[in-house]
């Protein structure tokens, strides 16, 4: 229902987020009935393809939102990229079993096997706090990045936002990355995700 209200507000897209308390613990929104595009989180290829089947226009790897710890974002991006690569070397007769294994529609599994990428843009999110974090996830295969607390909880949000944008553009250019990393002031105070209890994690919400 909140999504309908946001659509009436004419927002540009909706993040079906695991960070706010979900109203439905089992189901995601049927996004095909909306005109406004949705972005959805995923930790692996199966989650990503299920969200796309429901109508997501963009996927972001979940990472661990608000942590400033890049390790989960890296894990999720690596997982999705690796699972996509594995599909590209399989024969057509093997894809049906893969569809079952990933719990994802066969047509989407076939698309990924043919193209080696998702049919929608693949963002990285959840824990990006420095220009180096941004460049790292871009090198791992992210097509774009989302940053929230990494910017807003830092000591100089404006300078950090500019630096992270620059790092996403020049992710393959260490000299430009060094320039982007200079004189930023302290980053946000991070949380070590390994020290969080399972029940405190945001990424485990949704299926």
């Amino acid at each position: 229902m909140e999504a309908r209200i946001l659509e009436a507000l004419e927002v540009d897209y909706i993040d079906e987020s695991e960070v706010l308390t979900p109203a439905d613990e089992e189901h995601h929104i049927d996004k095909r009935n909306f005109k406004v595009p949705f972005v959805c989180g995923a930790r692996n290829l199966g989650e990503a393809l299920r969200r796309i089947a429901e109508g997501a226009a963009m996927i972001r790897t979940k990472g661990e939102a608000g942590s400033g710890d890049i390790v989960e974002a890296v894990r999720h991006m690596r997982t999705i990229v690796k699972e996509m690569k594995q599909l590209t070397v399989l024969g057509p007769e093997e894809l049906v079993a893969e569809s079952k294994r990933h719990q994802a529609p066969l047509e989407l599994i076939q698309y990924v096997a043919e193209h080696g990428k998702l049919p929608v843009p693949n963002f990285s999110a959840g824990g990006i706090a420095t220009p180096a974090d941004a460049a790292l996830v871009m090198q791992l295969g992210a097509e774009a990045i989302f940053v929230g607390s990494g910017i807003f909880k830092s000591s100089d949000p404006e300078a950090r936002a500019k630096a992270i944008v620059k790092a996403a553009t020049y992710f393959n250019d260490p000299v430009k990355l060094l320039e982007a990393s200079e004189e930023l002031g302290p980053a946000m105070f991070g949380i070590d995700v390994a020290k969080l209890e399972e029940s405190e994690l945001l990424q485990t919400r949704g299926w």
Partner: protein
Amino acid sequence: MSSAVRKKVGVLALQGDFEAHGKALARAGAEPVEVRSEGDLQDLDGLVIPGGESSTMLKLLEIENLMEPLRDFGRRRPIFGTCAGAILLAAEVLNPSQASLGLMDIGVERNAYGRQLESRIAQLRAEGQDQDLEAVFIRAPIIRRVGEDVKVLARYQGDPVLVEQGRHMVATFHPELTTDSRVHRMFLEKVATSG
């Protein structure tokens, strides 16, 4: 294209959908090159400025001191701007007003159809074509003024959406997001004929 050597066409790769443009150029028979610095412009036969977010691209162009090198390139070689690229090539930009390369004598209003919900796919007929083009408009601008030397190649709802002036060309939609290569081939003809 029939010429033995494939033309090298740059795609400005600071932000936006440069990857899709690279693929579209390759399908149309050119060799795409990603451009992120002044040195990347060397030896290029033409350049595409892709869609994306024009004010972000403008900031990156200014921070990286690329405005003058791009203007200079445009005095010698063809540039094709789509959506945000059209905004950057225009002489004047409205809603709000912002700096631009000023290589084409057109006035452009940003986000002129409204918000994301007004993004759409339309069918339109370009000049010299016997079949409709599929035109993807994403938070698209509208060309509100065209100068005397500007030729309108296609219109949608009465507004120019594909125009050319001399060696340069501009589309307010995204030809790189369809598999139809005709618009990119039109630009490659300009690349082939200008020097």
